[in-house]
């Protein structure tokens, strides 16, 4: 016997996605951010981080369907892997994209203004989150979300 509250019932009607897609994206993101770290401070690092910022922007603001790494995954990787074994809710990975976007924008602004130390910290933080996602399937932003809501928020639904 299971009782779901109204919000959870809404979850059931959401279109699920292949869980391997965001994981593949996290691997590419990890490589991009690692390459950015190794080239700071240089024009190459600005170009790399700009591309990654655009990727995060599309993934979070437009949606996972528009996320370039996801497009690469669906076009070139998924056909080789076959049917998905694990489906997941697209909201956690999309939320992760917005957390990544915040750090990437901060890093990019820091690079453009010559604040190299800030750039190292911001790109390093984004790399930590992407690497945890790629290597351990762990969503750092998702974990921080409830803590953030506990500190900042009141209950969004009055019962």
């Amino acid at each position, binding site marked *: 016997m299971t009782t779901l509250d109204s919000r959870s019932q809404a979850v059931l009607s959401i279109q699920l996605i292949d869980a391997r897609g965001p994981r593949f994206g996290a691997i590419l993101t990890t490589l991009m951010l*690692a390459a950015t770290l190794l080239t700071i401070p240089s024009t190459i690092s600005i170009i790399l981080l700009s591309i990654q910022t655009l990727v995060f922007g599309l993934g979070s603001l437009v949606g996972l369907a528009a996320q370039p790494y996801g497009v690469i995954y669906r076009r070139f990787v998924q056909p080789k892997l076959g049917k998905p074994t694990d489906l997941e809710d697209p909201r*956690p990975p999309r939320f992760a994209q917005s957390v990544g976007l915040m750090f990437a924008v901060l890093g990019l602004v820091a690079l453009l203004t010559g604040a190299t130390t800030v750039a190292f910290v911001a790109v390093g933080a984004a790399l930590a989150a992407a690497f945890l996602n790629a290597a351990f399937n762990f969503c750092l932003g998702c974990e921080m979300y*409830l803590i953030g809501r506990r500190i900042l928020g009141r209950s969004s639904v009055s019962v």
Partner: protein
Amino acid sequence: MTGLLVLLAVLLGASAFGVYRRRVDGQLRQVSRERPDEPTEIPALVEGSVAVVGAPDGPQVPHHREHLTSADIGAELGSSATVVQFSSAFCAPCRTTRVVLDEVSGMIPGVAHVEIDAEAHLDLVRRLDIRRTPTVLILDAAGDVRVRAAGAPRKADVIAALGTLM
């Protein structure tokens, strides 16, 4: 050079954290009567043995253990136990956990599975000191929180923990 050092530090730190989290994730812990905030591990579950978990030592003060009513969780308590799952929208393992707990509650008569949206019940989340989703609580027939796990628990562990409450 600095970039390489930052890269190595991040990879090492994140790996250590990831390995630690994988180890403790979803581990069911028995809630002691004295200090509900500091659950103690269930020895029987760690080794997978069938030993019955004894009551914690010390004076028995049942009122210090968190107590939930059907009004708190918005659903009727199960006649022998209730598995309460706190979930949120941005939570990938919540789905897996729901499937596991659904299956368990369907299998064992008298066990109810209640899923609570953590964001919509922040007061309850603060009162129970829930920090992440999914967090799973197992209540006995009276509604006392006896076992809790942060992260997706394994099915066998949930069944074993329910067994100790029956």
